[in-house]
């Protein structure tokens, strides 16, 4: 019988590193990757608590279903976000620094 604390710590670490990345980097693609890190941290904690409540069997699958929903929404977010970045870089000559892109039609 092993402890599940290491998974909770890993989820917390992934979320914090992703948050630092979102606040620190200015390249839009790095922002997307950091958001993926944050989503993975939250997913790992959901799966961990589903495992911690494995004795209530059908209801424990709700955590896994929530992770499935989050994964599909994250894939949609990545696709639309990358399309936005590509469209943005065409109108702004390859500049995807989110600090200098402050104008509409920019």
């Amino acid at each position, binding site marked *: 019988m*092993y402890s*599940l*604390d*290491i*998974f*909770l*710590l*890993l989820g*917390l*670490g*992934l979320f*914090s*590193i992703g*948050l630092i990345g979102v*606040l*620190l*980097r*200015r*390249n839009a*693609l790095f922002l*997307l*990757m*950091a958001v*993926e*890190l944050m989503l*993975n941290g939250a997913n*790992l904690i959901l*799966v*961990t608590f*589903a*495992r*911690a409540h*494995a*004795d*209530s*069997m*059908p209801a424990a*699958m*709700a955590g*896994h*279903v929530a*992770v*499935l929903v989050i*994964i*599909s929404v*994250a*894939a*949609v977010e990545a*696709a*639309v976000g*990358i*399309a936005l*970045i*590509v*469209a943005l*870089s*065409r109108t702004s000559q*390859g500049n*995807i*620094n989110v600090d200098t892109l402050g104008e509409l039609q920019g």
Partner: protein
Amino acid sequence: MDMQNLFATVIAAMTLASALMVVLSRNAIYAAFFLLLTLLGVAVEYAILNAHFLAVIQILVYAGAVVVLIVFVLMMMGFGRGGFQGFLPAGRQIALSVGLLVLLLGAGGLGGLLGEPLRPAPMASPSNTPIGQPSPKALRPALQWAKSPVPPPFLASAEIRTQPTAQENFGSVRTVGAYFITHNALIFELISVLLLMAILGVMVLLRGQQAAPNTSTTVVGSSHGASSHSA
């Protein structure tokens, strides 16, 4: 510390190190590959937690779709060359302190759990809890069609054929799928609508734009837009 816990700890350390490299690396291509390593590490942790279906889905969706998309766009648009577009000017301390504050708050909340370690519960036997028959309270009124006295034939035949143990039952494709379809069927359908909207949205976003002379024109959806304009 038994073998499983040691393995989980080693994988967790590797995952955290590569997540740090995603944030700190200067070249975007390196960041994308470290992101791939992080996601694979999370998939291994899913497998340790008996979430086998989610581990497969994690590798399929993230390594198969998201990272490939990021690497494709990086190589096509050449964002990786300049790569390091600077940190937030004069805000590095703010970002680091906010991130470390969240880390400390979470660690403080986790400290209550660490006093008494979170243990995995023994897995329930599938005979106590039939999967294909959710409790009537969980069914939404709009989905009464899903509540039938007889379980669907594929579930019944699977139960007769194999009668899996609790270890195989937790987190398997059949269990997660049956729970998803019977309890959250509306969300399941909404996800398909969302995926369709994402496909259409990407095509509309990149439709018929004139590409810059130095960039390639082979973008997903742009060729479709160009052909429809010429036609």
